[in-house]
């Protein structure tokens, strides 16, 4: 479903993604783990047509997203690291807007919106403005929205960041059930090892723009001779802290958080 071959992305002198290759099978839940600044989000941005790769090839459902942008975009859904809902609209209106952008026929759009909002326990709140929602509700709405146009692949970039354990647990249960019922391929990144161990069929560990290991949780533990995925992760990536330099986006993110109460 996803095929990445010798992918490289450079920003000036800095190499964010350094010659990575991997494949994700149809219907699989694939996790991308890595410390801050490892290149996870950059990879997702290239897969989702938001960034052009410096070199290497990409394939989504047999299409190159760098060339067949439009066709590729119809095939995936994405939940970004930063919220991308319209806060001034209601849950229902956000779904409608998404459905119209993806040209989902009216009847199907209404039906799927209802099913998905019910599944993510937002149906009662469908007429509430998104700005009045809790962090967990916003995340659920974003994921519901990502499924609306029945994508073949769903990208989740740190979807559980800042959520409480209850919300995280529920969210993964719902994603898993949709993965099974609609056989959607899920590509996710997270910082929570136990989540990756729980939901992902296979895991790739990325560090300094390179994939350092790839396999199931069991394989990663065996490969490193460790007891848990967390230990395996630390064995693979080392214990040193990663300090990213703050970009203008990070500064704005701080301001945005202040404004959001």
């Amino acid at each position, binding site marked *: 479903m996803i095929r990445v071959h010798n992918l490289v992305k450079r920003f000036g002198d800095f190499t964010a993604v350094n010659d990575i290759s991997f494949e994700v099978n149809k219907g699989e839940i694939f996790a991308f783990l890595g410390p801050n600044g490892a290149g996870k989000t950059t990879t997702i941005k290239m897969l989702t047509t938001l960034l052009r790769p410096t070199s290497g090839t990409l394939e989504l459902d047999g299409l190159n997203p760098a060339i067949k942008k439009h066709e590729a*975009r119809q095939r995936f859904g994405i939940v970004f690291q*930063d919220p991308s809902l319209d806060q001034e609209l209601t849950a229902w209106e956000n779904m409608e807007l998404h459905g119209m952008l993806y040209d989902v026929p009216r009847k199907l759009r209404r039906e799927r919106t209802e099913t998905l909002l019910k599944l993510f326990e937002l149906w009662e709140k469908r007429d509430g403005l998104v700005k009045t929602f809790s962090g967990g509700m916003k995340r659920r709405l974003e994921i519901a929205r990502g499924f609306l146009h029945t994508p073949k692949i769903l990208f989740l970039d740190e979807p559980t960041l800042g959520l409480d354990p209850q919300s995280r647990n529920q969210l993964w249960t719902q994603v898993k059930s949709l993965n099974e019922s609609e056989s959607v391929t899920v590509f996710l990144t997270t910082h929570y090892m136990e989540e990756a161990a729980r939901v992902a069929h296979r895991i790739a560990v990325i560090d300094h723009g390179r994939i350092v290991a790839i396999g199931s949780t069991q394989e990663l533990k065996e490969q490193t001779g460790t007891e848990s995925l967390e230990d395996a992760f630390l064995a693979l990536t080392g214990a040193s802290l990663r300090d990213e330099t703050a970009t203008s986006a990070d500064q704005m993110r701080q*301001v945005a958080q202040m404004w959001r109460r």
Partner: protein
Amino acid sequence: MKAIYILWLRELKRYVRSRAQIIASLGQPLLYLLVLGFGLGPVFRKAGGGSYMQFMAPGIIGMTILFTSVFSGIALLWDRQFGFLKETLVAPVPRLRIMIGRTLGASTVAMMQGTLVMVITLIAGFRPSSLVAIPLGFVFMALIAIVFAGLGVVIGSSLKDMQGFQLVMNFLVLPIFFLSGALFPLENLPRALTVATGLDPLSYGVDGLRSVLIGVAHFGVAVDVAVLASVATALLCLGAWRFSRIEA
């Protein structure tokens, strides 16, 4: 079409729901209108210019449309880093349509805000020369709205962060307002100022509004329409190009 419509509708819904913001953004035009209108009125009359309120009201309407349009362009910058814009950028919709939807929305909102201010000027004592003048006024209001919504898109998709915002405000938007002849007649100005006001697209917008509303023209309606239409076309093309180059 669906995409353009829904993005246009989004701008409208956001506008109607932000009541506090609507009222807040009426403060500035109201201040100009009442303080300058009544404050400078006597001097203006003594200098033989007639009623300053009559003269200034079209300028204040133009100013409102300028600010509202440019700001919605700058909201693009905010939407872009954190928010909703990404959702539209990964959607299977050509960038051009996204930009058209947003720009139409921004222009409509600016027109509505301009209409509100027009109502206020009418209450404050502004009297257009005839009733036919008002629909013609809307034509110029629409032209001004499209020109500056286009400028807003160019700015919004060119700035990297909010720090650039003050710069744009002080060195672009405010000069456009002050040099537009919204507050003073364009006749008998020093040479440098004549050139600067002639280069300012809002001058033609305000002049057009003034011609149709009170029958006082500097450039003439034909020139006004021609200049506004060409500037709008140029800015929309530039905006479409800048917008198509956004990488998240």
